[in-house]
């Protein structure tokens, strides 16, 4: 430093030379992503002990820093190995419910089909609302040592806002309106969770998994190009939320295998209690009937619709068990609640 002594004496500069190494992350193929800056002592693998401040991982602790209340001190409590990638993917794949849905292609539908679509949209705009509150509730407990997990949750909050709004838009865009409130959708279990992993396995893996299996049948449920596109775009987002949850569960089971039985306990409750359909339950009568009408193509084809509904349920349950298996909880198939077990394919 070529400062003259007179000016330097008026400065403290104690912050200026606290470290010697030079970080020079270079952008990769996808620009400068979190992966490129996950280097050296700044990397998640170099995470030291946390503290109860918001000091970002790798920043130098400030003597006298005040605590902000309890947060998770151990990485496994909130971490998912794919959260860096999922965060960047989320920023690249944001879409706009205002402009990316071909609203102008909506055509008037027969009344019963419009009502069924509006009922489904009413339930979804309700479910998606909770899906934003739940990660919000946990953000203050995610340590800044694991800030990428926090960043991911903040993209999820944005995604769920968009889902909440797109289904409201759908209900109000084609001559319909909102219909009956959902109830007994198993949403309370999500906000009741008292542990991050409990929340993640119930919301990311179970509830969003069920929603995802339904969105993936959007080609059959949707009656118009706009409907189908809503399901496709939303499914793209849900796959990130699910991927976070599956990999979080895997991280916990890999690093803290003693938590296995505890996690089963949460699932025992969620699968057995409430309506028995799990979190994000589609067996709530108005939703069930609306789905049968949409899948069948009309009230008079309700029974055909019912067969497809049972296929949807089957798909939901088998994909759910598959995701748990990927996470390392394959033994769940032996203890599924009866309303789910009935749909399970042989291993």
């Amino acid at each position, binding site marked *: 430093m070529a400062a003259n002594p007179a000016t330097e004496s008026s400065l403290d500069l104690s912050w200026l030379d606290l470290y010697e190494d030079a970080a020079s992350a270079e952008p990769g193929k996808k620009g400068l992503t979190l992966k490129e800056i996950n280097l050296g002592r700044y990397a998640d693998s170099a995470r030291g002990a946390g503290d109860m*401040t918001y000091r970002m991982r790798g920043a130098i602790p400030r003597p006298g820093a005040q605590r902000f209340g309890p947060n998770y001190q151990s990485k496994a409590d909130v971490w998912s190995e794919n959260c860096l990638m999922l965060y960047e993917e989320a920023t690249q794949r944001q879409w706009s419910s*205002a402009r990316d849905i071909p609203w102008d292609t909506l055509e008037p539908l027969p009344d019963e089909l419009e009502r069924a679509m509006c009922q489904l949209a009413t339930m979804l705009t309700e479910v998606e609302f909770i899906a934003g509150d739940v990660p919000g509730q946990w953000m203050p407990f995610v340590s800044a040592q694991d800030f990428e997990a926090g960043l991911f949750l903040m993209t999820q909050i944005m995604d769920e806002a968009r889902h909440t709004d797109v289904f409201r838009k759908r209900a109000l865009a084609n001559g319909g309106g909102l219909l009956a409130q959902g109830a007994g959708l198993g949403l309370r279990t999500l906000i009741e969770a008292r542990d991050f992993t409990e929340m993640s396995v119930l919301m990311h893996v179970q509830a969003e998994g069920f929603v995802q299996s339904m969105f993936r049948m959007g080609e059959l449920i949707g009656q118009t190009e706009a409907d189908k596109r809503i399901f496709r775009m939303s499914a793209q987002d849900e796959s990130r939320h699910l991927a976070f949850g599956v990999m979080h569960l895997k991280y916990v089971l890999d690093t803290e295998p003693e938590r296995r039985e505890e996690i089963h306990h949460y699932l025992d409750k969620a699968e057995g209690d409430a309506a028995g359909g799990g979190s994000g339950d589609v067996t709530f009568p108005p939703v069930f009937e609306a789905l049968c009408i949409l899948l069948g193509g009309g009230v008079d084809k309700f029974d055909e619709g019912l067969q497809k509904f049972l296929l949807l349920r089957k798909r939901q349950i088998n994909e759910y068990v598959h995701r748990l298996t990927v996470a390392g909880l394959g033994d769940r198939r032996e203890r599924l609640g009866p309303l789910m077990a009935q749909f399970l394919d042989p291993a």
Partner: protein
Amino acid sequence: MSTGEALARAAQATQVEIPQEARDRARELGWEDGLIELALAKGHSLQVIWQALRAGVDGQRAKEFLQGGQTAIPRDLSWMEVPTEWGIRARPKDPAMGLTIADLMIGTYGDVPDVWTNRSEIARGSYPNPIVEDMGYTIFEKALVWADCCVPLYEEAIRDRWVSATDLNWNSLEPLPHDLERAVCQFMTEQSERAYFTGALWSGWLPEISYGFLELKLFLSTIIYDLARHSEAFRKRALSNGGGLGLQAPTDYSRVAKEARSFPELAAILFVQDSMLYTLFSHGDEFAQNELERDLYRFVARDRKRMMDYHIERMKHMLFKLPDRRDEQNLYLNKAESRMGKDWADPAVSEPLAILLGGGVANIEEGKRKLRDLRKLQVDSYLADLQKATFIRKHINGRLEQAIQA
């Protein structure tokens, strides 16, 4: 064989377990003992029986149904006729913006009530189910949280989104003199932490706000997402040009925001920092050392402008609706200013900015002079923002006053 038949056969073959919840529900509805077993034996799947139970089919109907040998399950379809407003066809007012949430503010769907009374997560405008659990929301009063501008700002935030990984020209970075690089990095360390903290803080308040104020929550979600991106963008800059993360941010101001006991207190406290940071970043050209930083500060200032628009309108709206709470705001603003003054006086906060404004340690006197001007401008703009919110702040906190002079 249909899926339903297959399920039913599978059930018979494996002696299906009947969930306790189903038995309890059957008893409530007056189903005779053994009726579920009979239905299973007649080839109905557990799922179909469950749907009948959930639909509230009573014992008499269930029995007649089974004796009649019908295969279709009874339908209710009453949800088709609930008395909500029907026949809505929202259309984009501005084709360039597409179908916005502002376009949905029609008929009863656009009514944002002064007091929202439903304690569940019911979508505003849908038909309430009379028996639902309390979801635990605590904010039901429009005057505390609402600003009309959150409706258009939500869609503007989505339109104006940017991505730090690819919208900033990382390849353009050139090595800077040591003191300047370290000053940039210290500034980035502080701002990255402040953004992350504030994002986490807003997030934690989301579950408090009831569905009556849906559009506000949607808007806050964009704020949270903006803050996430600011946090990582600042970190990326610190780690990409030969520097690193410096000393963690001072905690006084953030702690007072964390200590807020109510939404209006939180908003009043954040008003102070958000106004100051908006002014700071909109003058980013004065302390940016290169094109990348100029672009970054411009993006951040654009996002922060929306945040400020919300703050000003919310406070104005609240003071209009709840005039007796006017003086109380001084308490929150005073606390926030005091802690901010403390943070500003910290060498790790003031010196990097002075070095960047002056162009190096060698020009520190020039830098300090410029920082004083900038601080004064921040405070004047803050007072002007309060004035726009119809709030006259007669005296700012003495500690903040001192920090400007330092």
